[in-house]
């Protein structure tokens, strides 16, 4: 490439320089144009930033169902087509204009894009984040910028337990509930359980899930011992050694918080080696893989959905409507991340309209919405959400667990023996962190 004459070389360099120089100049011009292009309606629209995985391994099971759910909810809310009590259009009459951002990339990218959403694009609120790491990183920035932020899917209990937050909310209950619910369901099925094992991915989600499950089991069945404690690395994909270890352990129950590819390959691999014949598997996030694997999941496997979502959801008009519009549009049933997104947006709408009602129907300021959001109760498609803990910023709800069954006649995956645990039965009270509550033996849990 060096064998060219001087002028051609110069032309190439110049054109490259022009290309690179044009990009930063084009950006500030392009952005306002995009914003101006919308026509101005009577009520100024509410700009909503929506951050979820659009690319990468977490996009398929979490990000895309979340985005699909947001797309359909916003469209239906703007058209005023959501059943009562959400039949009013938009947010107190203001149409919602969504702006989607990909959650893939480093934490630094996420913090930068969060600032861009608030300070450059001027969004009024943000709903998003699947990754607990991103939620933890974004929370202080949201506080700094006074930006109303609703986390929709991340599970770590740490968000509101480390320090109180003013502008951050999470309508979705945190992950402690998943594992307390799992422990209760396991002990209902196996009251005489002598030992149990666990296989969880070696990163924050897997470690937290396993720690909470063990603590809940200690509180509920002090005699049951931990047999094998396996923490393979995230996205290992191949679990031959772990399955051998679990086969020799011969525990009645194996707990796993696997998701995505790891969950699917683990189910297929342990099925081939007959592990389910010895041990009942408990998948706390199993619902996301249930329809894809179908008959490959053995009957009797215990499945959770991070709440009473999906097929475990009650038969309310709101839920029936949600399932119907989602299936009509995307030709698949909504899994729990779709429910998490829907209930987060409905929570925002409830707070927004409560604040608007206090101002006589006028559009509220963000600080009014924040005040209205604290401690609010509202109906989600699958359960009533109460912003009861974390100073009124963290929602609690019921959880359901059930056993898998493949309906051969209809060729359909089903969940039977569903048990629903009330929110106070599986969540810590307002004045305790989840770890302290579990270690104290879950005082004050009300299960009936």
């Amino acid at each position: 490439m060096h064998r060219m004459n001087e002028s051609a070389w110069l032309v190439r360099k110049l054109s490259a320089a022009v290309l690179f120089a044009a990009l930063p100049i084009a950006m500030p011009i392009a952005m306002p144009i995009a914003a101006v292009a919308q026509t101005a309606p009577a009520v100024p629209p509410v700009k909503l930033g929506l951050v979820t995985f659009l690319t990468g391994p977490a996009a398929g099971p979490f990000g895309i169902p979340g985005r699909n759910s947001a797309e359909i909810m916003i469209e239906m809310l703007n058209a005023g087509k959501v059943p009562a009590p959400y039949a009013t259009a938009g947010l107190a009459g203001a149409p919602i204009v969504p702006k989607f951002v990909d959650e893939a990339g480093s934490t630094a990218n996420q913090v930068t894009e969060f600032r861009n959403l608030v300070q450059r694009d001027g969004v009024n609120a943000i709903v998003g984040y699947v990754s607990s790491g991103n939620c933890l990183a974004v929370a202080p920035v949201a506080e700094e910028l006074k930006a109303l932020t609703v986390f929709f899917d991340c599970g770590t209990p740490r968000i509101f337990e480390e320090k109180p937050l003013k502008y951050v909310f999470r309508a979705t209950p945190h992950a402690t509930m998943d594992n307390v619910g799992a422990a209760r369901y396991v002990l209902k099925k196996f009251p005489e359980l002598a030992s149990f094992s666990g296989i969880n991915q070696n990163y924050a989600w897997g470690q937290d899930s396993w720690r909470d499950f063990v603590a809940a089991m200690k509180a509920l069945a002090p005699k049951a011992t931990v047999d094998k404690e396996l923490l393979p690395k995230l996205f290992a994909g191949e679990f031959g050694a772990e399955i051998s270890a679990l086969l020799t352990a011969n525990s009645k129950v194996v707990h796993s918080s696997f998701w995505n590819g790891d969950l699917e390959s683990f189910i297929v691999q342990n099925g081939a080696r007959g592990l389910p014949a010895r041990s009942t598997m408990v998948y706390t996030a199993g619902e996301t893989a249930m329809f894809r694997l179908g008959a490959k999941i053995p009957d009797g496997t215990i499945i959770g959905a991070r709440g009473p979502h999906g097929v475990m959801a009650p038969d309310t008009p709101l839920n029936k409507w949600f399932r119907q519009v989602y299936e009509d549009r995307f030709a698949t049933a909504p899994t729990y991340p779709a429910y998490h997104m829907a209930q987060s947006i409905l929570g925002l709408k409830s707070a927004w309209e409560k604040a608007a009602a206090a101002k006589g129907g006028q559009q509220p300021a963000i600080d009014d919405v924040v005040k209205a959001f604290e401690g609010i109760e509202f109906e989600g498609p699958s359960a009533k959400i109460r912003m009861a803990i974390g100073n009124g910023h963290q929602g609690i709800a019921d959880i359901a667990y059930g056993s898998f069954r493949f309906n051969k006649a209809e060729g359909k995956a089903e969940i039977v023996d569903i048990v629903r645990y009330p929110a106070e039965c599986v969540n810590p009270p307002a004045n305790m962190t989840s770890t302290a509550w579990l270690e104290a033996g879950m005082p004050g849990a009300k299960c009936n």
Partner: protein
Amino acid sequence: MTGLRIFLGAAILGGLGAAAPFTPLWLISLVTLAMSTGLVVCGLIILWRGGLVPFGQALFFATGAYTVALAGRWFGVTDAFLLTALAVIMAALVAFVVGFLLAQYREIFFAMLSLALSMILYGVLVKSETLGSTDGINVAQASFLGMKPRGPGYTFALFWLALGMVFSAWLGVSAYLGSVAGQLAGAIRDNEIRVEYLGISVTRLVHLKLTISAALAGAGGALAALSISHVDPQMAYWTTSGGFVFVTILAGAASVPAAFLGALLFEIVRTIAVALLPGGWQLILGSVLLLTILFVPEGLGSLMIRKRPTISDKGVA
């Protein structure tokens, strides 16, 4: 480096600093973060000129970042200058220790060994639940010589700190590259045996280069930790190192200011790509790298310096 160039550099950076209050805040945060990458790339240039491409520079970057987070959390250190100094020292110390091993290797072996070392740190961080595992930990807001700016003031303070670090790095690295040890980089790349015959230990020289580049990566990590207010093990992951190498290719090793401009351009292209194509922004990023390699094979820096025609340009070689 002439006095005029130093004056010019100081004037440009001073002008940027003075313009900060009139610039949108999101842009200032973005530039601060780009400067942190620029500092790491600055260090990579030193190695690059000696023919060494580390795929594990994230080791020192993450060391710097976690030093800031943990010094605040465990020892209550909040001063941004002190935190940065600690991060630089820790990263240089780590490089000094691993350098005894790393400086023995060249080319792909050097690249892979440095990658392996950074992945060890990643593995350790992921397994330590007390350090937040993959979720990482928050970094408390820093103070500046007793002052505690908050809100937009904090963003400005960090930006000015970044400009100060860029200026020091520019002076320091330019001085080093102009020194005998720095000038020998090309000779090491071309023929190590001849350098040894000059009576100079190549291993010790590489060890020194590695330590300097690690100190710069530590400074970059400290700045990133302060401006993101969060650290996580992803900072030590190989894709982070890959990102630094990407920017180095974009910037080229010809000039030090190009490292910062390259980093800035990379960050701007990324953020535009995310805004334009939420589901496929990586495509745009990849295309820019391809275009750079096709049209500016020696990086942006080659567009910035006056180049004397060399034999290869005349089509002889």
